[in-house]
Structures are given as structure tokens and as C-alpha cells.
């Protein structure tokens, strides 16, 4: 269940009887076991038609399209199986109520700072000296309590992330100089890895939100109405340290990714196809890792944690029971 299929080849994807068939440019045919699919990720140049789109819709499967420059281009989402007007009404009410909105926004940032800190302490205990970064993150956590507007909350998030990103230059080997975050297009290897990883995490969260009938465009930390599903942007912040960043550290430090997996043009630096394959494979494996969940009393996969996070938010909005953002507990 909930498998993601990544397609890197160029060609055509089509409905064939009751399955989905991939026809590559050299006329190779491959069938995808859609019964278990949560989403298809298209990375290559792929054609498809409306028949395929309605077939995926019937099966509740999303299709995320990854382009070249900033990686994620867009999603074709199935209609929600069960819509819930009440959920959307409550989502909007919480957004409109300034006190309520800032509470949720603060909680998301508190979780995301906690999860960054957890990566920092991990390396701090393994021969790096990161105590000043930990202090910075703790200070950000304190400042959060004094925020009175959402853009202040955003500001605290940004300075926490700036402090946190310093560990990248220390943890990663010499060929991977980072020097701070740059977007659209990423200007060096680390930025390229972060952009690619974050867009995969984002697309996974879009799928998780869809499973709960929450409206993905109504958000609390980010402003709704941006080009992307802003609620997925909110929740993605919580999971980037656990998913994107850990995968980067692992792949680069084990030399599974090297300088050959990137290509530079003018002022951009992008992962090659084989680099993207290596990364998505490792991320998929990470999503399947499990952890004992203390409240649910069972093992859950990292991917399921994304679903649980949407449940928690939805429960908070519908019942008024407190929302506590995901904070790595292990």
C-alpha cells in the first residue's frame, strides 16, 4: 500500500485495460501495479492523455510532475473521494481568527526548530562542535513565544534555518560547499540536493493531505493562495530535517552521490538523471523506515507519519483538541 512509482524514462504513459502501461521511446512496455500505488512521479518527458487522467482519478492516484529547473512542476490530483464541507469551513475559520492562526503557525515552527535541533545534536555528539548552533536554535524557540504576527513567526523560522544550515558545510565533504540557501535555480550542489529533496517531501505531503479531505490551499504559516498547495508547504517544514537533510548527509558521506551526479550551466547546478534516481531511491527507502509510535502503540512508517500529521491537524480543526506538531521523539 501507498507505494510511490518514480518514472525517469521518456515516453508515454497510458491506460491499458485495467492497468497503467509505460511505453518508453525504444518501445519497451512496462506495467505498473496500480492497486498499491499512492502516486506516480514523472521525472522524464512523458506524454499522457485524458483517458489516463480519469483512470488514475478513479483509483485515487495522484501524479506529480517533476520538471527541470526547480524540479517540481505540478500535480494532477484525483478528486477527493469524500469531501467534507465542515472540514473546510473549520479550516477557513481558524485562518480568519488571527489568534488561532498564529497559534497553529507557531506550533508548526516550534516543531520544525525541534527537528532541526535534533539533526544538530546528532552531529554534535559525533565529533562536531555545534553547541553555539544549538544555543541559537534554543533562542529562536524562545523568541517564538513572543511573536505577535505571522510574519514574525516566519522571521523566526528563517533565522532558525539560517543557523541550522551552517552544519551542512561542516558535515559534508569539501567538494560540497554550501554557503547558504539559494533558490530557483539552485546555484550549487547542496542547494540542488535540498531543492530536489524538499520537492519530493512536498509532493508526498500533498498526497497525505488529500487522504484527509483537508483543503490543501488553506494554510496557517504560509499565506494561502500562493502558486503551490500552501498547506503542504506548512507541513513540509516539519519533515525536511528528517527526510531531505538526512538523505543528503547519508548519500554524500557514503559517496553514493559524487560531483559527477551534477551538471552546471551558467549560474545553476542541477542533479543529473542518475543523481535524481539515486536520491529518490534513498528517499523512498527512508519513507519506509518505521518507528514505534508511543501514542498509537504500533510501528509506523515515516511516510505514514505524514498522514498522521494531516489527521492531527484535521482533528484539531474539527474538535478543538490541541494540535501538537510532529517533533522527532526518538
Amino acid at each position, binding site marked *: *500500500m501507498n507505494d510511490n512509482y518514480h518514472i525517469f524514462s521518456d515516453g508515454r504513459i497510458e491506460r491499458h485495460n485495467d492497468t497503467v502501461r509505460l511505453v518508453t521511446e525504444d518501445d519497451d512496455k512496462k506495467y505498473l501495479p496500480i492497486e498499491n500505488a499512492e502516486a506516480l512521479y514523472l521525472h522524464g518527458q512523458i506524454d499522457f492523455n485524458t483517458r489516463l487522467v480519469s483512470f488514475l482519478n478513479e483509483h485515487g492516484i495522484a501524479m506529480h510532475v517533476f520538471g527541470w529547473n526547480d524540479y517540481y512542476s505540478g500535480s494532477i490530483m484525483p478528486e477527493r*473521494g*469524500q469531501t*467534507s464541507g*465542515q*472540514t473546510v469551513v473549520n479550516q477557513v475559520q481558524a485562518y480568519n481568527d488571527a489568534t488561532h492562526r498564529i497559534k497553529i503557525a507557531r506550533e508548526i515552527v516550534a516543531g520544525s526548530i525541534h527537528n532541526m535541533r535534533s539533526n544538530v545534536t546528532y552531529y554534535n555528539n559525533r565529533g562536531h562542535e555545534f553547541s553555539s548552533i544549538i544555543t541559537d536554535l534554543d533562542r529562536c524557540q524562545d523568541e517564538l513565544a513572543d511573536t505577535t504576527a505571522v510574519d514574525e513567526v516566519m522571521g523566526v523560522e528563517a533565522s532558525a534555518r539560517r543557523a541550522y544550515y551552517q552544519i551542512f558545510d561542516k558535515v559534508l565533504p569539501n567538494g560540497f560547499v554550501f554557503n547558504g540557501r539559494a533558490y530557483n535555480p539552485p546555484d550549487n550542489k547542496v542547494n540542488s540536493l535540498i531543492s530536489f529533496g524538499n520537492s519530493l517531501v512536498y509532493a508526498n505531503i500533498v498526497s497525505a493531505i488529500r487522504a*484527509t*479531505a483537508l483543503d490543501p490551499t488553506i494554510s496557517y504559516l504560509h499565506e494561502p493562495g500562493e502558486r503551490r498547495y500552501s498547506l503542504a508547504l506548512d507541513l513540509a517544514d516539519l519533515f525536511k530535517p528528517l527526510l531531505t537533510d538526512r538523505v543528503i548527509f547519508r548519500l554524500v558521506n557514503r559517496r553514493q552521490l559524487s560531483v559527477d551526479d551534477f551538471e552546471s550551466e551558467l549560474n545553476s547546478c542541477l542533479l543529473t538523471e542518475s543523481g535524481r534516481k539515486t536520491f529518490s531511491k534513498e528517499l523512498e527507502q527512508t519513507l519506509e523506515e518505521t518507528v514505534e509510535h508511543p*501514542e*498509537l*502503540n504500533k510501528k509506523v512508517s515515516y511516510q505514514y507519519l505524514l*498522514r*498522521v500529521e494531516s*489527521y*492531527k491537524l*484535521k*482533528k484539531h480543526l*474539527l*474538535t*478543538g*483538541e490541541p494540535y*501538537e506538531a510532529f517533533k522527532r521523539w526518538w
Partner: protein
Amino acid sequence: MAERDIDPVELLLESARSEAANASFHVTGVMMQYYEACERELWFESRNIEINRENPNVVRGTRVDDTAYGDQRQNLSIDGWIAPDMLDDGRIVEVKPSSSLIEPARLQLLYYLWYLDRVVGVKKDGVLAHPTERKRESVELNEEAIDKVESAIRGIYEIVRNDSPPSATEKSYCDSCAYHDFCWSC
């Protein structure tokens, strides 16, 4: 609000008898079951909160109910709100996959009998069946049962009109409940 003064039982009867009732209040068989099993689940159901249909217990529950006595019973859909199953001999049957949820099934069956009596005007007997345990039990609508159903209707009314659900309390069947991960994800 004027509806506060009306007895929920009267309100339900009025809603059932006339489409034009100015306040509508309906109770389905499943709501009766949940009222007995878990009031929080009832509140979720009343808000149409999506359940996790991949939960194997939900799938199992549906399958046993659909296949047992398949050829000897007929589903009656009444007013679109209740859908009792009737055996060839005219008795109303309620099938349950296990004996652990017997009381909720009994209340649902009693509600069907009550509804048929009060709204449709036919008196029926009931049978509670557990195919996997090969047991059947007769159920009839006596005074005590009527009280039980009517007080359940009042209880359901109170829960459903509340803005927030009763809080989660751990029960033996939480593990197999479709809302498990929703309730306990904190």
C-alpha cells in the same frame, strides 16, 4: 431556539413523517450502534468525518455483513434513513461479525423495530444473528426496549448538536476502530 423545547423523540418522528418539518433530525442504524459502542465515534459519524477505509477491520466487518444469509434476506430501505434487513419469515435481522459488539447490534435492531412501529406502523419481531458463532437470538420491542431506544435518541441528539466530540477514552475495540489513528495520534 424553539427546537430546544422539543423532545428529540418528537423531533425525529416529525422529521421522519414530513419532509417539510422545519427542524430536521435523523438517526440512522449506524448512529445507534455507535451511541452504544462509542459516543465519540457517533459524533465523528454525524460530521461525516472520513474514516480510513484501508483499515482491515473495516473491510472485514463489511464483508461478513454482506455475505451472511445473503439469499434469505432482503434489504428494505425506508425513507433513505434506515435500511433494515428482513428474513423470508418477515422478521428483521441484524448480523454481527463478533459477539464483542453485541449490545450495539441489539440497540440498532431495537431501533429498527421501534422505527417500523412508530413511523411505518408495522409491528415486527427481530433476530440477532452471529453467523460465525452459529447463534441466533430473538429480540422484541417491549416497554423496556422502547424506553431504551427513546433515551438513546435523546442521548444522540445531545451528542450530535455539540460543537466538539466527547473526548477519547480507551476501549477494548479502539484497536479495531476505523478512527483509531485519528483519535490517538495526539
